[in-house]
C-alpha cells in the first residue's frame, strides 16, 4: 500500500447567493495516493474546478468558503495552517496548471525568468543556478532549442509551448501533487496528445501524483488510474477508470460515456442516435436539497430518488451514490 498524500473528508463549500448559502461542494470525500493519476470528471458547474481550488487553498474569498470538512495534506489539516505555511506548500508541494495558457503567463517577463522566479522563491536558489535549472526544465518539457527559447517572451510562443512552460513552472520544485485543470481544452488535438504524453512521462519519472480535471471521457480513459465523477457538487461515482468505463454504476456516468460519439476501433455504416441525457444541470438553489440531484434528468428516477439523497454504496473498488446502483 502506497502512502496517502491527500485526503479530503466530508468537504462542504458554500457559495453565498442572494437567497442564502448554497453548497457547491456537498459532503465530498476522496483520497489521492502517491504517484497515481486521479481524474475529476463532470459537466461545467459540477464543482470539479472548485474542489481543485479548495485543495490549493485558492478559493476566491468573496465567492465561497469551506463550511465543513477537512483537507489533509500528508496528514496535516490545511484549513488550520498559517498563511506562510500554505504559501510554502502552494507551488512547491502542490502546484497547478490551468486551462488557458494564453493568460496564465505574465506577458512582461521572459519565460525563463518566470520559471527561475519559482525556484528562487521556494528553493532559495541564486540567479545563475535558477536560470540554469530553468533551461533544463524547458528541455525536460521538450521545448526544442531550450537554451535559446528560455529568453523568449510568452507572446513569442505557441499555445502548446506556453502550456509546456506552465508545466515546467509547475514541476520546477518537484511537487508531490500536480493539479491539471482542463490543461488541453484550449489546444489542438495533436498538441493535446503531446502534452498528455509529456505529463504521463514526467509523472512516471518524478513520482508526482496528478489530479486531472477533464470533461472528456476519452482523455480520462487514456490518462488516469482512478476517476471521480461529480455531479452538482456531489460525488456520483468513484473507482478505477477501466472498471467505471466498462461497467458504470451510476446513470450519470453511463450518460456521460454514451452521449459522446467516440472514435471506435472499426467504424461501421451503423450510426444510431446518441444517448441523450435530457435537460441541464439543476440551478444552484436546489443544491442543498435532500434528494438525488440527478433525478430530474434520470430515466430511472422514482419517488425515493426525489425525496432522499442516496448514500454511497461500495462495489469492490467502485462506489456509487445511486439508489439503483446494484441493479445497474
Amino acid at each position: 500500500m502506497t502512502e496517502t498524500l491527500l485526503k479530503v473528508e466530508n468537504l462542504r463549500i458554500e457559495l453565498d447567493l442572494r437567497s442564502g448559502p448554497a453548497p457547491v461542494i456537498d459532503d465530498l470525500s476522496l483520497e489521492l495516493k502517491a504517484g497515481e493519476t486521479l481524474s475529476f470528471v463532470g459537466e461545467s458547474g459540477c464543482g470539479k474546478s472548485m474542489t481543485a481550488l479548495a485543495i490549493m487553498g485558492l478559493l476566491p474569498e468573496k465567492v465561497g468558503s469551506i463550511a465543513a470538512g477537512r483537507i489533509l495534506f500528508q496528514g496535516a489539516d490545511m484549513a488550520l495552517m498559517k498563511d506562510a505555511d500554505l504559501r510554502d506548500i502552494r507551488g512547491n508541494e502542490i502546484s497547478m496548471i490551468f486551462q488557458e495558457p494564453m493568460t496564465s503567463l505574465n506577458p512582461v517577463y521572459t519565460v525563463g525568468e518566470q520559471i527561475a522566479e519559482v525556484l528562487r522563491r521556494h528553493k532559495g536558489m541564486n540567479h545563475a543556478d535558477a536560470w540554469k535549472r530553468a533551461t533544463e526544465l524547458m528541455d525536460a518539457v521538450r521545448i526544442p532549442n531550450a537554451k535559446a527559447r528560455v529568453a523568449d517572451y510568452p507572446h513569442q510562443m505557441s499555445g502548446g509551448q506556453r502550456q509546456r512552460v506552465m508545466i515546467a513552472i509547475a514541476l520546477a520544485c518537484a511537487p508531490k501533487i500536480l493539479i491539471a485543470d482542463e490543461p488541453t481544452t484550449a489546444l489542438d488535438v495533436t498538441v493535446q496528445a503531446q502534452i498528455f504524453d509529456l505529463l504521463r512521462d514526467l509523472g512516471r519519472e518524478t513520482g508526482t501524483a496528478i489530479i486531472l480535471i477533464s470533461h472528456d471521457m476519452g482523455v480520462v480513459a487514456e490518462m488516469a488510474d482512478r476517476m471521480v465523477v461529480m455531479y452538482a457538487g456531489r460525488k456520483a461515482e468513484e473507482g478505477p477508470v477501466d472498471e467505471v468505463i466498462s461497467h458504470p454504476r451510476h446513470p450519470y456516468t453511463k450518460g456521460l460515456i454514451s452521449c459522446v460519439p467516440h472514435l471506435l476501433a472499426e467504424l461501421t455504416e451503423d450510426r444510431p442516435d446518441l444517448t441523450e441525457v435530457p435537460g441541464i444541470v439543476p440551478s444552484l438553489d436546489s443544491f442543498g436539497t435532500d434528494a438525488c440531484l440527478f433525478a430530474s434528468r434520470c430515466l430511472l428516477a422514482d419517488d425515493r430518488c426525489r425525496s432522499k439523497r442516496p448514500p454511497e454504496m461500495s462495489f469492490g473498488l467502485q462506489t456509487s451514490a445511486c439508489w439503483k446502483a446494484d441493479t445497474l
Partner: protein
Amino acid sequence: MTQVDEIPAKPRSPFSEAFEMFRRNHAAVVGLIVLLAIIIVAIVGPMVYPGDPFDMVWIPFSPPGTEGYFLGTDYLGRDLLSLLIHGAKVSLTVGLSAAFVTVTIGITVGALAGFYRGWVEEVLMRLTEFFQVLPTLLFSMVIVSLFGTSLWMITLAIGLVSWPAVARITRAEFMRIRELEYVTAARAGGVKNARLIFSVILPNALPPIIVQAALMVGSAILFEAGLSFLGLTDPNVASWGQIIGSNREYILDASFTVTVPGLAIFVTVLAISLVGDGLNDALNPKLRQR
C-alpha cells in the same frame, strides 16, 4: 424531448434589469432626484416666480434675506434668486443641447469609421485627431468671437470641441461588435448595412456612449460657465456662468453673488456625474451577474 429547466416568472428585458441595478445604487438615485428637482425648477420656476430677472429691484449687494429677496441682490441690484431660476433653464439647455450635438457627431463619425474600416476610417479618424488636438477653450473662443455670442453658437462651439471622445468610444465598440457572431448571422440573414449599423450594432454599442453623454452634460455646463466667466456669452440671457462672470470683480466684497451660482453649478454637475456613474454600472453587463 424533456426540458427540465424552469423559465423565469416573467420575461425580463435588459432594460428592466438595468433599471433594477440602477435602483440599487443609492448615490445614483439621490443624484437622479436632485437632477429632476433642478429640471422641475428650470421648467416651472420662471412661471411661478414673478418678474424679469434683469429688473433692478433693490440696492446692489444686499445680503441674502434682505427685504424678501431670499438670496440677496447682485452688483446691479437684480434679484439673485430670480437670476438663478432663469439661469437653471439656460444652463441645462446648453448642457443638454451640447451633449446632443456631441453625441450626434460622435456616433456618426465613430459608427462609420468602425463599421466600414479601410479608407473611410482613415479619413474620419484623422479628422477626429485634428479636433482632438485643438486647444478646446481657445478654439471655442475663436468660434464665438467670430460668429457671435448667441446661445446657439456657444452650444455648437462646445459640441464641436467635445465630440472626438464619443467618436473614439463608438468606433471601438463598433469594431468589437461587428466581429461578433450575431452580426455575421444578421449579414447571413440579408440584413442591409444601414440596418446593421443602426438597429443591430448601435443599440449594443450604446451603454458606454450613454454614460459618456451623461458626463458630457455636466462638462458642457462647466464649459459654458467658463466661457461666460471670460465674458464670451449672450448678455441677454442669464446663465449661471454669466452670473458668476458679471459679479466676479466683487468676489471679495460680496462673495455670495459668486458662491451661490457656483454652488448651483457644483450640485448640478455632481448630480449628473452620480447619475452617469449609476448608468455605467447599470448598463455594464459584467457587473450584472448575481
